[in-house]
């Protein structure tokens, strides 16, 4: 055995079998905690001094209304780097919000004729049919108008990409003719005055992020680097920049970004060095 083989190094490199809670689990526990915190603050004075019942009841109402109002205005979802969140909207539509993304929900999603949301970042939408009410996803560059369908929207780096899985959507962008998309289409809207680009893609390549997987399918390394920056806030660079043009195939798990980077290095046959916030491949 060589001298530098300290057993503790081996252990650090092995994973431990961990059972992670789902986003729903964490959300459920969070609700329980926050519920009790609010209850605690209202119920204690009421319990101790019964003759303040009226006052307590009023304050309870105020707090309840306050919480209700806060909830209505709290219809913003924001994910941190590396966080993927599943959301069910009031109208029954399901949204999976990718990392580092924001989704704002319009008022009264349940009753309005037009259901509207605003997206920056990336999300997968499974829109529920709802009394024929339209559903519109707004991004900086475009509007996606749908009836009931499943699609993925990426609104990053000054362009919006829509990949349609099922159903039918209409894509509007200011000063450009609207485009009707069919399943399997990917539409790209640039911020400049170029017409909307439409092409047929393999849709499964564009929603694997929901399962924390990355399907490479001939992706250039530069695109992988952009994804790491956008979704995880991780910056990678190459001593030899020609690696950025290399195209890779296969599947990589994104459950642990450490492992992702390590595996990427293994595929490229490079060494990784962490410098401040940057991973240098050389």
């Amino acid at each position, binding site marked *: 055995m060589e001298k*530098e083989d300290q057993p503790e190094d081996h252990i650090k490199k092995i994973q*431990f079998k961990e059972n992670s809670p789902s986003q729903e689990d964490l959300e459920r526990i969070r609700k329980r905690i926050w519920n009790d915190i609010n209850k605690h603050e209202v119920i204690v004075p009421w319990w101790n001094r019964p003759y303040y019942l009226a006052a307590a009841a009023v304050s309870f109402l105020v707090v309840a209304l306050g919480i209700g109002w806060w909830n209505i205005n709290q219809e913003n979802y924001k994910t941190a780097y590396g966080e993927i969140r599943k959301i069910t909207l009031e109208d029954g539509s399901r949204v999976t919000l990718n990392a580092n993304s924001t989704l704002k929900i319009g008022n009264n999603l349940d009753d309005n004729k037009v259901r509207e949301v605003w997206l920056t970042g990336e999300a997968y939408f499974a829109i529920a049919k709802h009394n024929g009410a339209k559903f519109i996803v707004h991004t900086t560059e475009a509007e996606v108008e749908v009836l009931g369908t499943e699609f993925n929207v990426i609104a990053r780096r000054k362009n919006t990409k829509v990949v349609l899985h099922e159903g039918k959507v209409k894509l509007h962008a200011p000063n450009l003719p609207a485009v009707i998309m069919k399943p399997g289409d990917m539409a790209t809207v640039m911020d400049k005055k170029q017409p909307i680009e439409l092409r047929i893609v393999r849709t499964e390549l564009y929603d694997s992020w929901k399962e924390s997987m990355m399907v490479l399918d001939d992706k250039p390394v530069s695109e992988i680097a952009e994804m790491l920056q956008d979704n995880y806030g991780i910056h990678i660079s190459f001593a030899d920049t020609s690696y950025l043009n290399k195209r890779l195939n296969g599947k990589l798990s994104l459950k642990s970004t450490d492992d992702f980077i390590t*595996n990427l290095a293994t595929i490229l046959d490079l060494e990784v060095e962490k410098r401040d916030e940057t991973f240098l491949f050389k």
Partner: protein
Amino acid sequence: MIRDKLTPQEHRSLWDEFRSGSQDAFSRLYELFSADLYRYGYNLVRNRQLVEDCLHELFLHIYNNRHKIGTTDNIRFYLYRALRRRLTDASARLNKLDSEDYIFDRAEFLIQSYETELVEQQVVDRQKEVVVAELNRLPKRQKEILYLVFMKELSYQQAAEVMNITMKSVYNTIHVALSALRISVIERLNREGIFINVSIAVLVGYMVRIR
């Protein structure tokens, strides 16, 4: 490993913000640490409901007592210790037995499967498996110490406090565990006729050391 992105100063200031009553800081604490606590808790008791209940109580407790609790520059350590105490007590009530019998039972080390797909050299994989199998044969107390120190990057002192044992027994345990591991891995590899002319650092992980 870059699991915990906060510096000790950030730990301290987030914790102080929380102690001075910031709701925002409390929310951040939950976001940053709940998943990790859940994982540790599940390794400790293998009972999702119990972990959920204890997490719920723990966060409620620190919230209600935020003005009374002390400073820390490692929030994870603080919360791990509190959670382990709660889980040990709850599990003792539940099992009416010495709860230490149940704690960290069935927790195990593993090699991640997708990683092995990438690496095709059979021999190397076999050797990695041997190391992991030997690790898993260690007594659970030793496993828990290795888990806290190497996977969760607690100091020996902190691991000792979390597990409510002395620093000396952490040192001893790690020493014993690592020597036992070293000997049994070499023996087993020799027995199987696999030559150890490749550095084990390469065998075990194929993991580049980040940091």
